[in-house]
């Protein structure tokens, strides 16, 4: 339904009056899909100018090629999107100088001029033919340089893309202590390169899509053929193809348009700006979706377990990785439940507190005017506002605000008797805990749910908390991400895959890929990879040899 309305809107935008000759702008725009280049260079150039509305960054360089300079041609590119050096060296020089030389040897025939140029004269690496105007614009507006020759209805497109783009830097949202420090950039080609650097198997497949009626955004999916489930890949293609919006600015657009549970607070598509994370997923049998103009790539199918998996777990030795992961689970649970537990226990189940703690909380709250739940809401909300402000503020001020907010307001609130000190401790810990979860979006989900649980906890105590937990779990287990149950391998339970959920098994024990994701080619590696010493003569281990020397 939405699509219909949108289509109408678009056609109303474009369609003003229809005329026969189709030389005016609206008509051209409307028929851009059907129009082809013509053999008349002047007409072509006129049309192009008309369609682009005499845009100042459009560069049309007319020239004459051939020994007798009798063939007029034009080089067309968008200023800023192309690498000028490339255009000058590979295109202009070739056309204006080398074409002449070549022609002296054999007569350049108009008919074959394009083939000749492509085959023997243009030193550029990537040259294609375009016939339709739509293709022409897709290329030129993406940074290619087009060569139109008079008398030919086919244009040449030389890849000269080169624009100012950010260097490969450490990803801001997912930093690690140990591990690669490169992150995706806004440049799609750089990103696929980063991916290729990690996955050198020829089986890596990258497929291109152009999505967005107006934005014409490049989108590419990457997967390993044979490991990724073909059904999932086909499903990804299907869902991408049915997207028909006017623009895509960020991966979130795609995410919202392809996710399984559009009404859920839980995201069934994983996003990352780390090439190693994406590559890891692809190695498991997932499908990566790279989007131009954003450093964030998507990874599907996504499961809940990814919330507690950080890349660094895999780069630390496994005992540390596992312990840190347990810590992260504790953080996840506290981020969701701690304030509710605090409210429930201090207002309903005081017997659970040890006597001394009960008395000290009671003493701290003496004189606090609000019930615990109001106290919790005040503190939680102010923390959320602080967090939001910290993000929006200019870099240098952000940390200052957090300090002022965290320390001063917290302390002042306690001194002023607005809240009790224990509540400040709880809220501060919860706030910090929510950042220990892997993925920024995940922590937002937890924070949202937290408020709901808090309301129930004050009305029904721990029973209310449990009701909320049941509802959340029942919802989460009902989700699927591209066919894979969201809470797998916990539910449906699978012992084999639990090795990478609550703990991080050592790499020599990860024999198999996740059952529901990598079932195409389940065996990841050989068994018996655990490092150990063998007692055979030939391969005598180093440390034993040393013993003999002594």
């Amino acid at each position: 339904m939405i699509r219909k309305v949108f289509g109408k809107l678009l056609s109303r935008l474009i369609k003003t009056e229809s005329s026969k000759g189709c030389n005016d702008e609206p008509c051209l725009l409307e028929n851009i899909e059907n129009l082809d280049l013509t053999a008349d260079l002047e007409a072509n150039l006129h049309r192009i100018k008309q369609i682009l509305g005499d845009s100042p960054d459009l560069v049309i360089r007319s020239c004459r090629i051939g020994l007798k300079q009798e063939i007029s041609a034009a080089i067309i590119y968008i200023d800023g999107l192309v690498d000028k050096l490339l255009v000058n060296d590979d295109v202009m020089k070739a056309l204006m100088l080398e074409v002449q030389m070549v022609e002296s040897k054999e007569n350049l025939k108009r008919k074959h001029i394009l083939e000749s140029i492509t085959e023997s004269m243009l030193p550029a690496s990537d040259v294609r033919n375009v016939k339709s105007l739509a293709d022409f614009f897709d290329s030129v507006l993406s940074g290619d340089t087009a060569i139109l020759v008079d008398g030919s209805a086919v244009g040449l497109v030389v890849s000269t893309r080169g624009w100012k783009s950010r260097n490969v830097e450490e990803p801001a949202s997912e930093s690690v202590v140990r591990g690669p420090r490169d992150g995706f950039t806004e440049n799609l080609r750089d990103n696929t390169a980063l991916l290729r650097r990690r996955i050198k198997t020829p089986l890596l497949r990258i497929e291109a899509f152009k999505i967005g009626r107006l934005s014409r955004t490049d989108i590419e999916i990457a997967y390993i053929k044979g490991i990724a489930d073909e059904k999932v890949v086909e499903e990804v293609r299907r869902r991408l193809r049915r997207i028909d919006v006017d623009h895509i600015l960020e991966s979130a657009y795609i995410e919202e348009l392809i996710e399984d549970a559009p009404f859920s607070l839980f995201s069934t598509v994983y996003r990352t700006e780390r090439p190693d994370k994406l590559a890891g997923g692809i190695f498991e049998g997932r499908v990566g979706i790279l989007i131009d103009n954003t450093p964030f790539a998507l990874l599907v199918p996504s499961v809940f377990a990814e919330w507690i998996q950080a890349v660094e777990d895999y780069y630390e030795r496994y005992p540390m990785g596992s312990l840190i992961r347990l810590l992260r689970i504790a953080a996840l649970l506290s981020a969701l439940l701690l304030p509710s537990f605090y409210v429930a226990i201090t207002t309903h189940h005081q017997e659970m507190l040890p006597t001394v703690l009960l008395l000290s909380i009671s003493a701290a709250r003496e004189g606090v005017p609000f019930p615990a739940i109001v106290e919790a809401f005040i503190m939680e909300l102010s923390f959320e506002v602080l967090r939001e402000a910290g993000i929006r503020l200019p870099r240098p001020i952000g940390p200052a605000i957090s300090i002022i907010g965290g320390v001063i307001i917290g302390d002042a609130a306690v001194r002023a008797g607005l809240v009790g000190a224990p509540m400040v401790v709880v809220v501060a810990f919860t706030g910090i805990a929510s950042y220990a979860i892997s993925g920024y979006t995940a922590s937002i989900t937890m924070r949202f749910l937290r408020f709901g649980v808090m309301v129930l906890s004050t009305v029904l105590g721990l029973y209310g908390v449990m009701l909320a937990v049941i509802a959340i779990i029942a919802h989460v287990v009902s989700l699927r991400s591209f066919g894979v149950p969201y809470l797998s391998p916990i539910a449906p339970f699978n012992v084999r895959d639990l090795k990478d959920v609550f703990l991080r098994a050592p790499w020599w024990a990860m024999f198999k890929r996740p059952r529901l994701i990598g079932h195409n080619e389940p065996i990841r590696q050989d068994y018996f990879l655990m490092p150990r010493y063998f007692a055979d003569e030939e391969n005598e281990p180093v440390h034993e040899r040393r013993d003999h020397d002594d």
Partner: protein
Amino acid sequence: MKKRIAVFLILVLSLTNSGCWNRVEIEDLAVVLLIGLDKAKEEGKVRITVQLARPEEMVGGTAEGGRVTKKAVWVTASTGDSICDAQQNLAMHVSRELFWAHTRAIIIGEELAREGIAPVIDFVDRRRDLRRRMGIVVVRGEARELLEAEPGLEKTSGQVYSGLLVRLFRHSKAAVSDLRDIYEMLTSRGIHPTTSSIELVELKDEKNTKKQPKLTGTAVFRDDKLIGWLDEAETRGFLFLKGKKVTGIFTVKCPVCEEKNVSIMSTRSSTSIKPQLVDGELTLAVQIKAEGDVLEQMCRDDLSRPEIIGALNQRFAQAIKAEVIAALNKAQRNYQVDIFGFGQAVNRKFPKLWQKIEYKWDEEFPELPVKISIEAKIRRLGMISGPTTKP
């Protein structure tokens, strides 16, 4: 969609409109630390005394300059026709919600205990906020007095009670039964309830006398009625016979000089109770094994000789036996109640016979022959092996 909205509205309204039934803010609680129950002066009435914590004073360190510090607890009492009634009357003058779950113990006054403690057990176990872990002790005197006592080291007598309870193993001269134990002893045949007694001792210093609670000895019940006490030595004997582990110091005369004392710390003990049928007559063979260390020697003799140790072993055994026999005599002759659970032992060994004597066990018990054999061994002599004088 409309249906969903309706369901949602019903949920929201039912949650918000009816209020928060069980919700009590933590600062509105009056935390009860100890409960004291006495017989009231008026006929047929009960008096309940509670020790309520004042949070700020209990936590301490928060008293800022110039403020008058109050006592850490507030002891208040009320009477009523039943315990619940008394409790309700109490609530009439306590400004906060009485919170019982943290009660350390119930102190029962002697007079009330003589009338029967079954109503107390009923009152406690019916409640959801009082637990079976809670101790029940009988005070020699009035419970109220004990609750009002201002102890030396701690802020409240409740804390004193907890501290003493944890350290009972130092002397084994008292044994607190918790609610579970008493309930079981009350309802099972072949045993009568016992629990520790608590009393106030006066400790004098320069200025004033402080009254300090002390767990000592045992209160003996026939069914639910208090009938008497066991003193400290008898209590240890009683614990041996009940099969509990007894740790504590036994003082015996030195086998060499026969004058000065040697202190032996019993470190572990075990008891086996075997009912036997000898010529159709029921007898009980009690075998006690104990191990101990020498902790102290007041004479100059060298104890570190095997034959001396052997002699010490015998005296250790005699010391134990004296206490055991004292306890047995008190139970069989004076009180004539089976506080040891011998009846239960008979039941386990001879269920058929037990069914015949179950209901007249109280008459059989005083006549029951009990054979006591004790095996006591000294294992260690501490960090030194000889006396601290010249030979």
